[in-house]
């Protein structure tokens, strides 16, 4: 029985979200801290350096870390307020067990661990090993990511392990592997400094990666032209030289038309194409019908603007192209990425200073987390779980016979579907809140209801943890040592600033103890996080994500090391491909032919408006952390339905009117915010909120066939004005909606 033991309203009352504010005179102790810890922000993939102020085992404030090279002290509001997740009234400090009718009752560690191990054994004996699944997340350090991967395969022995990176950038990873044979942003962000053109494709940089703005602006100060592709006029698009307001879900049409323009005008680097790439002809052939006029019809962007973008891109000597969830969260996410990479390869602007390309990874350890093995089809070092050689290599390091190593299982959304079908009966999760973050979350809730046993490791009682039978009180990022890999491929050091409060334990300690009780203790004999990292180094040696030459000491001394770093004397590789030795079998970069196709769901008479989702600057992902911090909540207290005045007029919707948004999956009510900064055929809702305020009740479960990323960015919806005006934002308490 995995369903909330008491009403969700009561759980919200007991476990929050409650809003944490600093007292009026500031948190006591920050003026004379015991310790100032140089570490990194726990939120997005930028992993900004920050100093945490510690007093008596409490984080009491922060100080900008101006020496750290990427952000030089710069932070976004989430970074500034991150310290308030410490000393939070909602913090879980003891293991708990769900008792129907009673709620979550504190229990001893012994009981919580025993029961979990018993249930794992029971389910696996009754239904088979694969009937117990595990879900993980990439806010975890490299060490924990590696540990989870090994734990699931060696201790749980299940193929069904996947992670929330599946909702993040897996399309980019797959696209990069196809093109380059390796998955990492090819350049450090500082390569934007002298790029002549910066093209940002489906990335709301100013709200989701605010500190990256600095590098974009630096490029512009030096004369770069900025092209932004986004259905909305985001803050970064407002001053752009060219804003291409694309119809959601039509991205590959745009990039294909630009490629055609490059070919037609011969804005190509023929030498580079001939010497270092393959597949150009097929890619060219694929786009030959994609004229500007066709692209205008499909994308809704005037042909003249597309031509302008192509001309700037074609004529530039240096450039930087980056993309994010806008093009990746699609059923053709991988194709969109390939179409972008084709533009980079056609002009040969890669592997040189100020010639850059990369995805902007969203989650804290989106980069490192996707390399080291809690992805179902992958082993550490970005190795392929179906490749016999990779399997043998890792099995040897883990000390198990290769045949015992599980194969690939379900991806995240598919795993929930499998639970819904009754194939998977038990679940262990860490660092993942699918009830808020997965699409079509009404299905997700139903699925969790059907689990026979669900154990969850978390520091707050997330909306997903409401469904757990056992909740383990785990650790915050600042409570455990480790490393993460930033979106630019820089491995940086996360330092334990404080110990977990009360009886809470470090995530690692919990996993190690479970492994021991599952009889795999000998395979998990680590004393420190560094021990795990050292094993990870060996496991990644010679792989396509080679960390072998990286040590804690080197990371600390250099404020980060860029992988690949194959041996101890190697300084790391900030810029990839300077040697033109791509990691594909033929050592060439691959053009991938891209044929356009429509998104998984298109508008029709019944559902006539495109719904797209995204984020706001003050919240992070499913909001488990940021919906608990007062000032961040106050900045954007409730999700709003952004729509254009022309659409509002047509649908007779007034500003702040409550509008029911209906899709094939469900419906939800949001206050209207009428703005001219969005396309007329599109509405936008940010997704950080739970319960009735969750945008993901509406989104579709269509997946990219290659990467299995859900198509969050496009749904067909209908708008039904209710005639009521929304109450003031502060009264909705959307942050704790049920």
């Amino acid at each position, binding site marked *: 029985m995995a369903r909330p033991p008491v009403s969700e309203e009561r759980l919200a009352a007991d476990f929050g979200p409650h809003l944490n504010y600093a007292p009026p005179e500031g948190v006591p102790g920050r003026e004379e801290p015991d310790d100032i810890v140089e570490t990194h922000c726990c939120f997005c993939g930028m992993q900004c350096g920050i100093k945490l102020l510690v007093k008596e085992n409490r984080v009491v404030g*922060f100080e900008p870390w101006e020496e750290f090279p990427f952000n030089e002290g710069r932070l976004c509001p989430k970074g*500034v307020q991150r310290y308030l997740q410490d000393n939070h009234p909602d913090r879980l400090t003891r293991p708990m067990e769900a008792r129907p009718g009673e709620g979550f009752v504190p229990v001893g560690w012994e009981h919580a661990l025993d029961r979990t191990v018993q249930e794992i054994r029971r389910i696996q004996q009754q239904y088979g090993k694969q009937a117990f699944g595990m879900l993980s997340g990439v806010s975890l350090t490299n060490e924990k990511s590696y540990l989870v991967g090994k734990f699931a395969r060696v201790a749980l022995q299940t193929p069904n392990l996947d992670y929330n990176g599946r909702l993040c950038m897996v399309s980019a990873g797959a696209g990069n592997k196809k093109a380059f044979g390796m998955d990492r942003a090819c350049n450090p962000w500082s390569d934007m400094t002298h790029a002549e053109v910066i093209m940002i494709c489906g990335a709301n940089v100013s709200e989701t990666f605010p500190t990256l703005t600095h590098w974009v602006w630096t490029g512009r100060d030096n004369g770069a032209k900025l092209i932004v592709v986004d259905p909305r*006029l985001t803050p970064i698009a407002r001053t752009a030289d060219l804003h291409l307001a694309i119809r959601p879900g039509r991205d590959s049409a745009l990039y294909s038309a630009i490629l055609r323009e490059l070919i037609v005008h011969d804005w190509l680097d023929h030498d580079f194409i001939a010497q270092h790439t393959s597949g150009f002809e097929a890619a060219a052939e694929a786009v030959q019908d994609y004229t500007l006029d066709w692209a205008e019809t499909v994308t809704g962007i005037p042909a003249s603007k597309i031509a302008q973008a192509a001309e700037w891109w074609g004529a530039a000597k240096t450039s930087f192209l980056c993309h994010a969830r806008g093009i990746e969260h699609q059923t053709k996410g991988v194709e969109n990425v390939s179409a972008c990479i084709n533009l980079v390869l056609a002009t040969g602007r890669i592997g040189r200073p100020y010639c850059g390309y990369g995805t902007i990874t969203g989650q804290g350890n989106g980069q490192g987390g996707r390399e080291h093995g809690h992805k179902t089809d992958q082993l550490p070092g970005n190795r392929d779980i179906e490749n016999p050689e990779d399997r043998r290599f890792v099995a040897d390091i883990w000390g198990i016979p290769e045949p015992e190593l599980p194969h690939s299982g379900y991806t995240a959304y598919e795993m929930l579907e499998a639970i819904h079908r009754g194939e998977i009966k038990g679940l262990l999760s860490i660092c993942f809140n699918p009830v808020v973050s997965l699409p079509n979350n009404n299905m997700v809730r139903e699925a969790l209801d059907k689990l026979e046993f669900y154990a969850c490791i978390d520091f707050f009682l997330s909306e997903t943890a409401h469904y757990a039978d056992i909740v383990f009180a785990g650790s915050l990022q600042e409570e455990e040592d480790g490393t993460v890999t930033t979106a630019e491929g820089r491995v940086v050091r996360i330092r334990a600033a404080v110990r977990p409060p009360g009886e809470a334990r470090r995530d690692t300690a919990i996993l190690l103890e479970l492994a021991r009780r599952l009889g795999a203790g000998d395979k998990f004999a680590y004393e420190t996080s560094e021990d795990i990292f050292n094993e990870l180094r060996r496991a990644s040696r010679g792989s396509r994500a080679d960390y072998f030459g990286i040590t804690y000491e080197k990371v600390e001394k250099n404020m980060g090391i860029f992988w690949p770093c194959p041996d101890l004397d190697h300084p790391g590789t900030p810029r990839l491909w300077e040697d033109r030795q791509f990691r594909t079998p033929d050592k060439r970069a691959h053009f991938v032919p891209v044929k356009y196709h429509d998104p998984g769901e298109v508008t029709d008479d019944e559902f006539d408006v495109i719904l797209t989702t995204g984020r706001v*600057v*003050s919240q992070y992902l499913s909001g488990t952390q940021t919906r608990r911090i007062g000032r961040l909540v106050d900045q954007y207290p409730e999700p709003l339905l952004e729509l254009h005045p022309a659409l509002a007029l047509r649908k007779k919707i007034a500003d702040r009117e409550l509008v029911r948004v209906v899709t094939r999956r469900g419906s939800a009510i949001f206050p209207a915010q009428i703005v001219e900064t969005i396309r007329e055929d599109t509405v936008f809702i940010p997704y950080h909120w739970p319960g009735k305020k969750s945008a993901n009740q509406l989104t579709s479960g269509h997946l990219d066939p290659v990467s299995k990323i859900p198509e969050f960015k496009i749904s067909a919806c209908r708008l039904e004005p209710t005639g009521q005006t929304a109450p003031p934002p502060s009264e909705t308490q959307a942050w704790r909606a049920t």
Partner: protein
Amino acid sequence: MIAPQFNTEMEFFMDPQRCIGCHACEMACAECETNGQLPMITVDYVKRATSPQTVMQICMHCEDPACAKVCPADAIVKDEFGVVMSANTSRCVGCSNCVLACPFGVPKKVELSDLMMKCNMCYDRTSVGKRPMCATVCPSGALWYGTREKLERLRPNSTPINTFVFGKQEVKTKVHYMMPKGSTKLVVD
């Protein structure tokens, strides 16, 4: 009493066109020791219905501060470094003259405590040679604190100006705005 250690080579420069409206400055300002948890910087949308344009405003520290002049209680003073200090708490009577007379719309009236408060350029930080919180965390360089020489290198096509025209009034300030190359002043209205 710590003798102020201002680094007089460091100056404050603003460029609202770079602002992305993230409010990091505002949250960081609340971490500054001189104003408790009350942020002294403001960030607002210019007109959200038509544009995501935002504007952030700190005290410009006028050479001839109107706020100080219109104060009926002599509560606002400018120090030797040109920093116009927040209202003297023992004098301020909460009349709001400064709030309404400041041409930049900076001072804030804290109604409950009948007191005006305003940005004093992170006096606790700048007076010991540190950079102000807002400008240190600003991810977009809309708020920037450093030497003029470095700024000119970083932003070759802009000119810092510190003359503003409001109606017939010309106002000179300690804080600069970044303007197109060759500009000498910003005419507001």
